[in-house]
């Protein structure tokens, strides 16, 4: 065996090392230094995240099962940044009395799921992909049940595990159909054998695969678990679920659709995605309007955001790919800013309802300011990053050129107005309702402040500094092979 193939997976190996070190610390360090574990993880992970910016060797490993290219490299780095922010925001919470005893597990499971997502991103063989998918899904159920003294948390875990397993089963059914058509599970082999193939089996296979990944991305109509799980899980886990897990799923979704089923784009899955996007964006938005619990609210908002991310996939061009990665990056910063504020307030007061945020600006101006920026960015208001990412993802979709896509973009644009309405509801509660303030002044922990500051800086700088998108665009242009089959 050629061991130099492992050079192509520096990020996975680095992550594994971080995991092992955290595990060793958790298991063998004395009790009195255990409360330093979250900080230890954060620092270790920060070092690792910086290290993983060094590009490894690009190419295919293990007989074509695993691929490292500039796009997978940058996608993993984007996820690393997000996870670093999640860890920073969780430090204080994981040292609270009722979860402190299990805090090691929290970080270990978090890192393991990330490893699974990395495998999903890089897999070019369905077996490896399924291993990644399961590694990324099952531990999240344990994480969702982390505050197990709460009924909602247990319920969230149960809901998550059932839907995750169910969706995996559907996904594997799809794969078995594909295997029946092509006799192989390598992406490249399948892609060549389905060129010109027209049968109901292929359509069923694509539909099942889309449904399977759709569960992870919480596309409508596979979204029913989302709100309950987001509400019940601890906020750190929810934020992780909403950005990291979604980002990884979206990227691997694009890889599967273009690299495996690329030749069936026009006949089979373009219209499927078209319908899914309209449903996802619209229903996600409409349900979000009614929510009073902020975590449920962001759950529906994240459903509709997933619809926007899908616009980058239906574009099937490098602009779409670059815009999608950029969208995920911006979305990570905006959503984590929102969840960061929610997490701080929930930790200090236990309040998560929108009504509790009335007059927040009076008592906690900086938290309110951060939340406002997050809402503006999610709503796509300039000069914040969300505006740029929305604009670019629309441009990417329109570059595909058909009138149908313009109509789709118009529907998406009209939906941004609906979404703006409910994002402004939060701003309204914090700034306009100055009469009653139920949240007292909160002294947030310095790790939370660092996390939120990074988010705020990201929201402001990512759009105005054009270098980020330009770099992503160069990277997307260097992997045009992804779209060779379209």
């Amino acid at each position, binding site marked *: 065996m050629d061991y130099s193939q492992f050079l192509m997976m520096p990020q996975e190996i680095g992550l594994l090392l971080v995991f092992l070190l955290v595990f060793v610390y958790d298991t063998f360090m004395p009790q009195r230094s255990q409360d330093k574990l979250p900080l230890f993880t954060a620092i270790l992970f920060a070092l690792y995240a910086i290290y993983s910016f060094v590009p490894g060797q690009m190419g295919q490993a293990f007989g074509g099962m695993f691929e490292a290219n500039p796009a997978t490299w940058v996608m993993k780095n984007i996820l690393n940044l997000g996870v670093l922010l999640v860890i920073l925001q969780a430090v204080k919470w994981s040292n609270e009395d009722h979860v402190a005893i299990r805090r090691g597990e929290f970080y270990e499971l978090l890192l393991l799921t990330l490893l699974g997502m990395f495998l999903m991103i890089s897999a070019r063989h369905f077996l490896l992909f399924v291993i990644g998918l399961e590694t990324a899904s099952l531990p999240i159920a344990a994480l969702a049940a982390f505050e197990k003294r709460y009924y909602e948390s247990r319920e969230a875990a149960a809901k998550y595990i059932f839907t995750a397993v169910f969706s995996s089963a559907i996904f594997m059914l799809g794969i078995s159909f594909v295997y029946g058509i092509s006799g192989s599970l390598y992406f490249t082999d399948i892609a060549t054998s389905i060129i010109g193939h027209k049968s109901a089996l292929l359509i069923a296979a694509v539909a099942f695969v889309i449904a399977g990944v759709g569960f992870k991305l919480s596309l409508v109509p596979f979204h029913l678990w989302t709100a309950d799980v987001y509400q019940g899980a601890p906020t750190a886990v929810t934020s992780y679920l909403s950005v990291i897990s979604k980002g990884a799923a979206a990227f691997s979704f694009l890889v599967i659709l273009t690299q495996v089923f690329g030749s069936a784009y026009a006949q089979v899955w373009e219209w499927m995605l078209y319908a899914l996007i309209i449903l996802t964006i619209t229903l996600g938005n409409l349900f979000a309007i009614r929510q009073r619990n902020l975590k449920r609210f962001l759950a529906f908002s994240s459903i509709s955001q997933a619809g926007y991310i899908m616009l980058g996939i239906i574009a099937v061009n490098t602009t779409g790919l670059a815009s999608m990665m950029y969208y995920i990056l911006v979305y990570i910063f905006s959503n984590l800013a929102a969840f960061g504020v929610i997490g701080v307030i929930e930790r200090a007061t236990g309040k998560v309802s929108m009504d509790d945020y009335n007059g927040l600006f009076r008592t906690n101006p900086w938290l309110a300011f951060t939340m406002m920026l997050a809402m503006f960015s999610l709503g796509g208001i300039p000069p914040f990053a969300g505006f740029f990412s929305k604009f670019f993802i629309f441009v990417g979709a329109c570059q595909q050129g058909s009138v149908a896509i313009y109509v789709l973009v118009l529907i998406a644009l009209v939906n941004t107005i609906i979404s703006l309405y409910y994002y402004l509801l939060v701003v309204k509660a914090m700034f*306009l309702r100055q009469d009653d303030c139920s949240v007292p002044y909160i002294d947030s922990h310095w790790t939370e402040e660092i996390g939120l500051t990074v988010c705020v800086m990201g929201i402001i700088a990512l759009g105005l500094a054009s270098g980020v*998108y*330009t770099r992503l*665009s160069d990277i997307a242009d260097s992997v045009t092979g992804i779209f060779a089959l379209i």
Partner: protein
Amino acid sequence: MMEIFNNPLIYFVIIPLLTLLGLAFCNNRGMRAIRAVAVTGAVALVALAIYLVCLFLQARAAGDTSEMILQSKVMWYAPFNIELALGVDGVSVVMILLSAFIVFAGVFASWKMNPLPKQFFLWFFLLSTGVFGFFISIDLFTMFMFYEVALIPMYLLIGVWGSGNKNYSAMKLTLMLMGSSAFLMLGLIGIYFHSSADGNLTMNILEIAHNDAIPHQWQLYLFPLTFVGFGVLGAMFPFHTWSPDGHASAPTAVSMLHAGVLMKLGGYGCFRIAIYLMPFAASELAWIFLTLTGISIVYGAFSACVQTDLKYINAYSSVSHCGMVLFAILMFNTTAMTGAVLQMLSHGLMTALFFALIGMIYGRTHTRDIRDMGGMMHIMPYLGVGYVIAGLASLGLPGLSGFAAEMTIFFGSFENADVFRRVLTIMGASSIVITAVYILRVVAKLLFGEVQDEHHRTLTDASWDERLSTATLIVSVAIIGCFPNFFVNIISDSFLPVVNALKDYFPVAGM
């Protein structure tokens, strides 16, 4: 990269941003510091705007006939050819001048702002940043970005510092304007993808106009998107409903800036983007929008007649006057377009003056209902005289700005030889009479009627900051009315490129 800082235009964005930065270091209790920073910023903007007018006149006097002066560009987003492209022609120059004066007057009109003065001025200057950025940009993306930057502060400005049914109005205004910008965004993306026949897509307005490559079929899709997108901000019927509610609830300075400047963004955008870049569709579809704007003019004026709230009266009068701007632009000849820009100037100053005075009266009487007020001329003569002047400007008294603008518009419109446009012109011109009705009704009741509330007799006249704010506007209104030629000379040659682009599709009278 650094050359752009040699361009005076960029400072129209940098000065408000520096003011923002300065305000960020102020404390809400340090009212003097806040005022000092805000006034410094506003004065700097006025000075720069006057300097710009001089630069422009100098360039034209020196024989520089290029379409835009002071052009410079920096690549921003290379993958989409998005540039920070700056440049101004006569229309943008006078718009910048107008905005600077209204920002100046607005700062003094909110001299005693309470509560949270620091945050108020922060949002106020963010709004100005957007306005100035919009007028100096000639790149589709940056223009659109600045346009939206100017919109969103309105939500908080109205929601936090407004009065009356402010939550509703703020949300309605924001959603309608952002909704229109959704259409606009799609229109701009469509223009971008058809901007060039040889594949070198560009966002630069001048280059797109020069390429003239947008297929006629696509123009028919994209023109309505862009025109309606900007038209909503220009309060075009039937998308004007945000305007009365928004104005009625907004604090004084915000009403001033909004009616005075922000609504001009709509007219300017229709002119600069929709008509200039898509002349074929503009001449094909003009009849639809002419009808709508014609309705705006008359409908706005009639609605103003039956309102009793001072702010609603002026908001509907704004619908009518802004309708005239879009109406005149759609007449496609130099005279009418000149009138449109004069009307933008005139309406901007006059409405700002109205809203300033209304704010000052409301601050004293705590009512805006004309049925509850009367005899103000004796109680507060300065404000009363100001109101009469604003009213006379509004109904088009010669010597004040409204006359010059409206005469030019209706002369220009009548130049078109076809019956449809002439009938619409006559219909539109009838609004002048209706304007006289509602203006004189208010003046008679509010200023010369009987005092309704004995308590009102104890009220004081304007303080020095209020006098400064209104005097600036009154003098400007008179200057435009007495020397319209000065402005006409600045703006007139800006229309040639547009009228030339339209010439192939539309028989332009008087050319």
